């Protein structure tokens, strides 16, 4: 039995907090995590595009994840982080309240999204992971960073 358990595919997720909830994204899509830093505003772009930041000489767009998910606004704090993701060569940062851990989830513990989380943008959610009474909302990163108006 244990051998079949270990055979089961486990995925690792970076877990972060946003408006009191736990969210997770696959660690394979995370480029790096940096402290919150000054972001340069970009005019005439989507509301949730916060601006751009300088990542070692590279100009990286940053999205305000609260705005993207339809959550209430909040000021950046000391624990605020920018999770820099890389999807199909697009490097995009996401502002989160805090990064908490890296979580291994076997696929058996991942459930499809339910009504439980109806107050965030439903189609950006890929599933819900449950581990030790902890609920982690798993985001569809490509959809999240993608600009709708394209």
């Amino acid at each position, binding site marked *: 039995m244990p051998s079949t358990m270990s055979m089961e595919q486990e995925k690792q997720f970076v877990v972060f907090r946003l408006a009191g909830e736990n969210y997770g994204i696959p660690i394979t899509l995370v480029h790096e995590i940096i402290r919150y830093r*000054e972001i*340069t*505003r*970009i*005019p*005439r*772009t989507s509301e949730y*595009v916060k601006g*751009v*930041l*300088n990542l*070692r*000489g*590279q*100009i*990286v*767009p940053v999205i305000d994840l609260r705005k993207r998910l339809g959550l209430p606004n909040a000021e950046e704090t000391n624990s605020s982080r920018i999770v820099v993701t890389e999807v199909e060569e*697009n490097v*995009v940062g996401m502002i989160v309240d805090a990064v908490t851990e890296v979580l291994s989830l076997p696929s058996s513990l991942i459930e499809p999204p339910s009504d439980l989380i109806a107050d965030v943008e439903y189609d950006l959610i890929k599933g819900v992971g449950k581990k030790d009474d902890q609920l982690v909302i798993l985001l569809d990163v490509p959809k999240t*960073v993608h*600009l709708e108006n394209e």
Partner: protein
Amino acid sequence: MPNEDMQQYLSVFLDEATEHIEKLEQSILNLEHSCTSDLLQDIFRSAHTLKGSSRAMGFGSMGELTHAMEDIFDRLRGDDLVVTHDIVDALFEAIDILKSLKEEIANGGVDQTDTTEIVKLLRGLLDPSAFPTRIADSSTVCAEEPISLTQTEQIAISDAISTGAMIYEIKVELDKDCVMKSVRALMTLQKLEIIGALIHITPSEQALEDEDFEFSFELLLATDKSMEDINAEITGISEVSNVVVAPYRAMAGMSASVQTANVDPLCKVVSVPSPDTEDSPIREKPQKMEDTDSFKEEKKTTHHVAQTVRVDVGRLDNLLNLLGELVIDQTRINQLVSQLHSPQDEEIKELLHEAAAHFGRITGEMQEQIMKARMLPIDNVFNRFPRMMRDLSQKLNKEIDFVIWGRETELDRTVIEVIGDPLIHILRNSVDHGIESMEQREAAGKPRCGTVRLGSRHEENYIVIEIEDDGAGIDIAKVKSSAVRKELITAEIAARMSDREATNLIFHSGLSTVDQVSDISGRGVGMDIVRNNLIRFGAIIDVDSRPGKGTRFTIKLPLTLAIIRGLLVRVVSGVYVIPLASVIETNKIDCGAIHVINGQEVIMQRGMALPLLYLDNLYYSERETSIERQTSTYIVVVGSADRKVGLVVDSMLGEQEIVIKSLGTYVGDIRGVSGATILGDGRIALIVDVNGLIAIAHEEKVKTYVS
């Protein structure tokens, strides 16, 4: 072979193929002007290498086509085929097909364009009966036929081979004005007898003694010396103009190719350069690669002189980025140093200062070096024009001598990318409108053959490109009347215009002095696009024309588009960069002097109302202006002469060279913003696109009127 290995080979192959195809195209073009043996060797080598590598990569069609081309070159080189228009045309067609084959390989990995037609065409050209052959008198041996040997000679050959010697075919050409041909010939024989055994001589030794031969003779030599050695022996003899040494073909098999033993600069083989080469407008590049076919191995290609490496530009950009980070760190160190206050820190402070300054100098120098590494010779653009000019002149039935100078001028690849199209337009215009027909030229007492000169040179921080023709020049009266007819200017203004001003009218849209629209030019849309494109990246174009003498276009380009000078300004939402090229002046104004006309704030300047714009307002529709709290503010006057506006800013932070970066595909194009840059302190500042901004302002105004 693992797939990624294959992929790696493929990209190397494609790079090489591109180079060889380009080189072939250029050389074939030169063939028409001057057919020298040097040139033919070059061409042959390129075709041969391309054949080998495409076959090795399994691209059969490409291999077959290059093989057919190689055969042609071989025959041209062997002197039994002369260069004709038909051959050059067929070769160009082959080049075009090669290009599309290469594209197919680059895109999908299979070369599928049908090559049977072109191969058949090329093969057809090889049939000597269809084309004039070069004087094949009794003394010259047709190169494609092995020298016929007597039985004794054949036995001598097999004997020589059994002792490990090699058989070489040697063709010696004497100077055309050589007075003692027989002496030179016999000297050659003597020299060769020392290093090996002469098996066969055509014409016979007797004929050579009697001077009963033209200027060349051929030998078969059995020796254990190398081709270079043989060459060295013979070229030492005076009045020998050309020596070709090759492994004996009958031994190397049918497909073996003749190769001039080459090219140790110390024993240069082909000694006397034909005067044609020097007159030829297009200088040949020094041969960098050596390609030797040996007798025993089917193919053995050696690449010496690897002084350059191919680097992905992306990597250089990354280097530049990282360097920018170093500069930021340096600034931070400087700031930290200034925070050291206690007296015992003084010494450390001093040392740190020194170190930081040194650090700064080095990063500055590195930046310069990397920028230099991104530079390419302008020939990367120029080299595609000779072919175009040839096609054009044929199409228009005009004889044109196209001269290129200053091919080696280096400029940034960003400029290389954008300069091609404007140049094509101008060159087409020169051929179509500038150069007259041959009859007209003769009537005007000019040489039938027109000249178009294209060149480049450095001038301070600019590159100057000149396009000059010796055609009819611009008919100023015609330009003026056309401009008046099209209502671009009034007749009165036209009458007052200087010739130079009138000449520059050709850059207006809709103006064409040609009565007939050809498919090459004449629709009156060319030159204004040319000028607008050039202006967009900060270039200046000027035209100078003399009736009957010709026209000269001068384009002044910045060395790079990656770096511009900009004015840093601060407004409420942050720091912005205004390209200095679009800044007309800066002023400090009294807020009391601002008037409102039709809902638009303006300020009177030299009797003109200058509209005032606010960046924050246009970008974010925020009406946050600090003006109300102040008595005076700064404005930056931007735009072009007829469309000036004043940008109201809180402060001006100075002028600085900035590296332009794109905001990336994710953010996409944003109106009013042309890009971004990273400032010395690591922050990002947006670069203002002045024209876009003015357009936005215009629309906003229309909107307010409507509402």
